[in-house]
């Protein structure tokens, strides 16, 4: 037998076609070909192929490479890869986790107007007013309205018509942002209507809730006059009340606010009205134009997608919720869009942690411009001179022309500010992972594919405060504490940033006897590592260097780690292959990691390599020999 023929026969034996191997040289597709195309379609198009698409695939001029190129640039492919990281990071929080701040919470109550009509009145429980009788509560006393209004609860008492002079003096009508798209205009006209769903893609109010008691549509909201103020800054005022004790004055449920240290020290000075400090120390700080700095607690009429597995543009269920829950939907969407943009534009995957960019829609623009600093600057932060926020997201970076109600137009912001670091400085990440250690752990396990597990380590009671040294704990904390230190300057459960100039790693005036440590120092400086000669910012003890480097430092450490690329490969490949990688995949995983790194850490090349590899392309469940 001649050699070439023998070799051909050998090849036939080795690659015997039992109907399952792909025959890619002819137009007649095999079952394996169809199954491969179906798998590609499911993973890269997000659904099985349509009949027309199958027909096109069957044509002799169908070029799979060209089809792959097209799909690897599509939003559906980006969504597929985003899902890998959403499954890992799970960036949503339950409804029980609230974004409620005194500054943004606009409570609704019911009072009787001078004509005896039941009217919804909006107010901020934290609002300062110069009239001591109503300072820090609704703008009418019990004598005036017949009612006492608790925080977040229905009014108590028997309502009576409020005299007209008082009504006109203390309240005003405002056309708010949630009812008017043009709320910033002098005379807003563009009131919410059913066509907003089409115009603004998904901003929907449950209209039947936004009506007056007589069922006529609400055209404006009645709000206490102080809340309607629009100034960006207000003057700090002092009342002379300090540390008031004794019974609550008659007609009130709480005592009027005392003057804070900050107010006393800054009386007459200007303070920002978008901070907690401002709201609590100035009677001139309101909710801004169209009440844009506030979220109405009622009615709970913001339709939000509560079941949206295919994205919020195709919700499977919408439910009417209060505004603060509705606003939180967009935090998750921000993270999702941020990731999808990186994959769709085939950007460097390391930007998931390093990028200062983001994308925002209308509600997010409103949030970042007016509400995101409402927690600033923290308890007693004024003691440290921290009264003006140094934000993780600079409100000035938000474009001014974004329509607040437009939920579907996403605008890219190239630079959130110097403290931004990918997903790690987004509110949803910081809320989901509330503590420093949780944040570090989430990044470590998602991007390095490693975890902190201490097998069979006995924990002995110990006085050693340093977990990197404590017997037993050190097994994990030697690594975890320095990583957690990167989040030192973002307080736990918060997204306020602590600037180094005001919160140095060690602060002389907080070097105190830890047993008698000043309560203000105790909040920010760790008593466990404090003495009269030493103190350290909470979270920084394991690595002051990392504390100052911040989340950007963690981004650098993680993305420059040799485990980063293999971990990306592992996560994406396991998701696409539908099985864990094993030791037998070691060489292949190394090759894929090289492809990924050589391709500039871009996902497209990696995914292409995976879906064209035999492990994906040729895998089948057919029994051999049949």
């Amino acid at each position, binding site marked *: 037998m001649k050699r070439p023929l023998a070799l051909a026969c050998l090849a036939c*034996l*080795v*690659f*015997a076609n*039992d*109907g*399952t*191997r792909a025959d890619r040289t002819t137009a007649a597709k*095999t*079952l*394996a070909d*169809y*199954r491969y*195309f*179906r*798998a590609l*379609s*499911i993973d890269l198009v*997000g*659904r*099985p*192929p*349509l*009949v027309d698409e*199958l027909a096109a695939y069957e044509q002799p001029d169908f070029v799979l490479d060209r089809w792959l190129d097209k799909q690897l640039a599509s939003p559906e492919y980006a969504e597929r890869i985003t*899902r890998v990281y*959403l*499954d890992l990071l*799970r*960036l*949503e*929080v*339950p*409804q029980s986790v609230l974004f409620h701040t005194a500054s943004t919470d606009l409570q609704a109550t019911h009072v009787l107007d001078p004509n005896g009509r039941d009217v919804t009145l909006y107010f901020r429980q934290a609002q300062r007013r110069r009239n001591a009788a109503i300072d820090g509560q609704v703008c009418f006393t019990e004598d005036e309205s017949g009612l006492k209004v608790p925080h977040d609860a229905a009014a108590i008492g028997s309502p009576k018509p409020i005299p007209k002079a008082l009504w006109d003096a203390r309240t005003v009508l405002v056309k708010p942002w949630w009812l008017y798209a043009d709320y910033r205009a002098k005379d807003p006209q563009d009131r919410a209507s059913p066509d907003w769903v089409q115009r603004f893609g998904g901003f929907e109010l449950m209209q039947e809730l936004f009506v007056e008691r007589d069922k006529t549509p609400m055209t404006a909201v009645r709000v206490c006059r102080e809340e309607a103020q629009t100034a960006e800054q207000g003057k700090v005022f002092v009342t002379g009340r300090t540390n008031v004790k004794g019974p609550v004055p008659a007609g009130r449920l709480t005592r009027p606010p005392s003057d804070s240290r900050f107010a006393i020290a800054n009386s007459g000075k200007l303070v920002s009205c978008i901070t907690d400090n401002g709201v609590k120390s100035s009677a001139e700080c309101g909710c801004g134009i169209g009440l844009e700095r506030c979220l109405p607690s009622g009615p709970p009429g913001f339709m939000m997608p*509560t*079941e949206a*597995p*295919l994205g919020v543009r*195709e*919700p*499977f*269920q919408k439910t009417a919720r209060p505004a603060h829950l509705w606003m939180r939907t967009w935090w*998750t969407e921000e993270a999702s869009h941020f990731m999808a943009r990186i994959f769709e534009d085939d950007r460097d995957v390391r930007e998931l942690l390093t990028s200062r960019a983001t994308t925002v829609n209308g509600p997010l623009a409103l949030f970042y411009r007016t509400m995101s600093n409402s927690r600033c600057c923290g308890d007693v932060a004024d003691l440290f001179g921290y009264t003006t926020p140094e934000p993780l997201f600079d409100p000035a970076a938000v474009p001014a022309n974004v329509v607040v109600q437009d939920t579907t137009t996403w605008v890219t912001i190239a630079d959130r500010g110097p403290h931004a670091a990918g997903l790690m400085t987004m509110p949803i990440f910081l809320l989901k992972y509330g503590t420093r250690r949780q944040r570090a752990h989430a990044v470590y396990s998602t991007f390095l594919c490693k975890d902190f597990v201490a097998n069979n380590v006995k924990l002995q009671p110990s006085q050693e405060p340093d977990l990197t040294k404590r017997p037993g704990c050190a097994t994990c904390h030697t690594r975890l504490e320095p990583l957690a230190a990167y989040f030192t300057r973002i307080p736990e459960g918060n997204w306020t940033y602590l600037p180094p100039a005001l919160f140095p790693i060690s602060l002389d005036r907080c070097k105190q006897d830890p047993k008698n440590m000043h309560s203000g120092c105790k909040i920010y400086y760790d008593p466990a590592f404090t003495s009269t000669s030493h103190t350290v910012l909470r979270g920084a003890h394991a690595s002051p260097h990392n504390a100052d480097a911040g989340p950007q430092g963690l981004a650098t450490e993680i993305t420059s780690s040799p485990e980063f690329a293999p971990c990306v490969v592992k996560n994406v490949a396991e998701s696409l*292959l*539908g*099985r864990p990688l094993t030791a037998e995949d070691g060489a292949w995983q190394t090759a894929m990691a090289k492809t990924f790194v050589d391709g500039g850490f871009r996902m497209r090349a990696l995914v292409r390599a995976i879906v064209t590899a*035999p*492990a994906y392309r*040729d*895998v*089948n*469940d*057919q029994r*051999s*020999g049949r």
Partner: protein
Amino acid sequence: MIRRAVLLVVAVACGRPETIEPSRAVPFGGYSELALDPTPKGHRRMVPPEVYLRAYLTWFGGLSPAQVFQKARGRKLFDQWADYLVALGLPDYAIDAPRAAQSNTVMLAAMGRLGEALCVRSVEHDLRGRPDKRAVFAFEPIANPSRDEFASRFDTLHRTFLSYPARLAPADRVDRFYALYRSVAARHASGLLSADESGWAAVCAALVQHPETGLY
């Protein structure tokens, strides 16, 4: 004995050498070919619920979830989407519930419920409506089809739900589904759906729930 052997050897060694005539090669018998299949063997993966849902909306004619709800409900064919979504295995990130890694009876029940709704409405829409508007039953219906007439139409459904032609399916699949068609049609001489419509609805429902629809 040994003596004879020795004599034989001597005779052979000392005798005149004989030539052996060449003969024709005779093919070996009794062998079978062993096809070597070096392709990697792996478990079939579950189609992600997001993909299933998108496919479902596409099969419904590209409607939105809200439109599908409006179209599908009525006569207890469909409840709320929320009732089915978690049963399909979707994760819930808010409570860190992972996506389902295996099928279970509730998942099959949900897919069956969704499948019936889709197939009944598609039968009503496609087989009674305009030919150019057919989404699932993209063929001309025929009363009481023969096996071959059924097969060509079944191929359309097979491509729609399983993404490959019926000719590549296991040999008895067409017959199995034809038997299903006929048995269901025979039971539905009258009703909201005609006999043939009932048959096609059943075939469609079986394909939507087929293992090869839910796996890849």
